[in-house]
């Protein structure tokens, strides 16, 4: 998937959860990515974050960190 497309898709998810009251938005974005994104898509996201995360909503970057933490915990 083109990086632009991935960034757009991830940011769309972040925008939704950032509008939700009383939730830990980064957690919810991470949970959404874990539930709906195939592992290779998440790997692409990790790689993009590692490369500087250009264009990503800060919430996505926070969620990416949670995703990695969860994966290590498993």
């Amino acid at each position: 998937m083109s990086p632009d497309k991935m960034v757009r898709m991830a940011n769309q998810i972040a925008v939704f959860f950032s509008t939700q009251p009383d939730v830990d938005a980064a957690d919810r974005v991470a949970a959404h990515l874990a539930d709906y994104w195939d592992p290779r898509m998440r790997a692409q996201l990790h790689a993009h974050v590692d490369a500087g995360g250009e264009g990503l909503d800060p919430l996505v970057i926070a969620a990416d960190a949670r995703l990695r933490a969860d994966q290590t915990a498993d």
Partner: protein
Amino acid sequence: MKDFIIPVRERDMGTPARTGAPVTLKIDGVQVTVPEGTSVMRAAAEAGIAVPKLCATDSVEAFGSCRLCVVEIAGRRGTPASCTTPVAEGMEVRTGSDRVRRVRRGVMELYISDHPLDCLTCAANGDCELQDMAGMVGLRDVRYTAPEGAGLANHFTARDTSGAANLQWLPKDDSNPYFTYDPSKCIVCSRCVRACEEVQGTFALTIEGRGFDSRVSAGAAGDDFLTSDCVSCGACVQACPTATLQEKSVIEMGTPDRAVVTTCAYCGVGCSFKAEMNGDQLVRMVPYKHGKANRGHSCVKGRFAYGYAQHPDRVLSPMIRERIDEPWREVDWDTALSFAARRLRDIQARHGRKSVGVITSSRCTNEETYLVQKLARAVFGNNNTDTCARVCHSPTGYGLGQTYGTSAGTQDFDSVEETDVAIVIGANPTDGHPVFASRLKKRLRAGAKLIVIDPRRIDLVKSPHVAAAHHLPLRPGTNVAVLSAMAHVIVTEGLVDDAFIRDRCDAEAYAHYAEFISDARHSPEAVEMLTGVPAASLRDAARLYATGGNGAIYYGLGVTEHSQGSTTVMAIANLAMLTGNIGRPGVGVNPLRGQNNVQGACDMGSFPHELPGYRHVKGAEVRAIYERIWGVEIDPEPGLRIPNMLDAAVDGTFKGLYCQGEDILQSDPDTKHVAAGLAAMECVIVHDLFLNETANYAHVFLPGSTFLEKDGTFTNAERRINRVRQGIPPRTGYADWEVTQLLAGAMGADWGYTHPAQIMEEIALTTPSFAGVDYALLEEKGSVQWPVNAAAPEGTPLMHVDGFVRGRGRFMVTEYVATDERTGPRYPLLLTTGRILSQYNVGAQTRRTDNVVWHAEDVLEIHPHDAEVRGVSEGDWVKLASRSGETALRAKLTDRVSPGVVYTTFHHPDTQANVITTDHSDWATNCPEYKVTAVQVSLSNGPTEWQEDYAAQAARARRILPAAE
């Protein structure tokens, strides 16, 4: 397994059923109790007594014109018509006295004096009520004959006995491709006119003239059936008691001698039909009166457009090729399946377990879909399964799941009969879900109010005897803003159903929501500039929905196919909770599903993150159920969705696809990207009736079977599980479920199903919402709506009756977020897409029927103002371009679309409207944003270079080598 075979002709009770207090009367000495308001004719039928009749039939209200059904009633004078006489307590009726028999014979003699006596060669021979009634009343003699060499007026001879032209005689109208109108056989009973009005609601027919000059007439003077408003639903043909309105297939093939009750394979309404056959030939499809979705009605697709099953384009032999630039080679099943299995296993060996996947079909049965996802999960060993619901109703699943706890539509179709205010948003039921539209229009004619929210002035906004109270012509992409503004009005004007929210909804979530939605930025006035909807009419519409009685929301893909599709579904769910419109008849949230089994395909675990019954693959206890039965380990990670599969294919990590009954190259957005994805794969297996567009990139073609050729079940938009019954054997030798099983077998699995009923047993065993479903129950009940389990052994017509599935309903904050797809100087117009009555989806089936007479090509609807500034006139070729691609088609100037908005359909591959649509998608589900694309329109000379290249590639890709001797 016993098939549900019924006599071809069902019993006609004469007049419609009534509900009311019981009334007891005696008919011919037989005591019978019927609801108040029932006709004497129907009461007699209930008692097993048939009163002769011609103008009465139980699909329409009594009319009382033929006078054949006269009876005698003790204490009343004369011989009243039994069809128009309601029953009364203690009434004593005689249906066969000498007096009424005399009257009937006299009436019948007059009818027959003006009717041709060519019964033996008539198409309705054996299926003619006039013939039956003549027999029943004992007519032996017709005294009225024309004197030699003189004129005597009749309607059935072209010349009278003097040889002069008979001006009363009219030639047959065979303009409609599916039925003929022969005025010479008409008895002017008005059944067709009444069916067109009462059942279909089109009002295309009328009785023209008076007395002896009375004629059935379609449209205005000079019209024939084809040029009139007739939508060819077939209701008139079904109502006609003679050969006046007759299916052309019956004229050609003769009357059928057996019928199998089955379910239509077109839209999500899921109409029940009798497939009427003669030997192994299908003669006609007739809507089944006891079908609970359609109640005896049909549309042009289900009723008539089945000819694709016999179309010469149909491929009946498996085919393979090494590379997609080679011609196809016809091979036997074993060769094709082992070729496919070898390639898939080889890809997995080289690129990993997750490098292959499946697309299940929303056109195939539940049992077939279940097997295809099982193939991915149990044989491929991954969760790479998706279905076309991805591109239509996946946001419904997410949005309703978050708010109510289940993706299920909340009502049955009967519910509309108790609706007082209907909101139709992003749906065009008269074209997309015609039989439901007829039921809705019937309710609207009885006084219910309608609110249409759509960028386009759809037919429901104004059609004969139906007018929307409000049409909110919003700018494409602003659904959330409009629905939030409606909620704002309801909350800030105090129109909320407080008791419902207190008793049924999550208080904290509501408190957040109420605060959010009360903000002035959501007011209709604040969003008017954005949405284009006048604030005053939005306020009125919101008030009407909140205060007008039972409010029901019906929605379609105009809601879901947006970057905020899931948010829009949540906004709809919020509206219904705010107003307490959930959990009883007449209300609810009703997603109108696109394809026949899109509901079932979702139920059956087609999505990459869910096992059957909407249970996430991450749940170890759910995986354990299948691991036990299938004897394999199930991947706990979600797989790829369709757009992700194509992206991964371009990236080189996804190499093999088994695609059953879908045409993603035509139906999915951004055609060039889809083609690139398919071209990058090493093994594309297309399992379909025809060499569809996707097959241009396939290496294996497995011929499919039509719904007429197999057993199984479809689940419609009401969650109704309906049987599909085999009428004729599969023309390819195998039903589709058998082919999937053979492919699994070629890859090493041993499934061993011998009938779809066994697959349903496995579904019931593993899926709680289907726990009580089996074929025996379906035989007994006809159909059931899931959940079917110990708590609801006969199914669940209404959801959330005593509480939401998730416990308390959850209000969700629905912030409007503009789509990234915006108009600008290069692409100043917004394109939105949809469908038309006569064609279905990618048109693979309907384009191969006579339905093309109504819609032979996709056209671009454009507002006259936008056309004028571009120099475009009606019928001109125009180029339609977006940042994704360009195509050319003809323009149609209409004010149905607002200035700034253009509209087209996607039924024809020559146009390939999806070369225009982009890769934007719903934030939660990746459902593509078909409904908003920024475009430019300019004059053109004909097809674009891309279209010509595409057509040339398609022609090359469809070459088939002559079979080896």
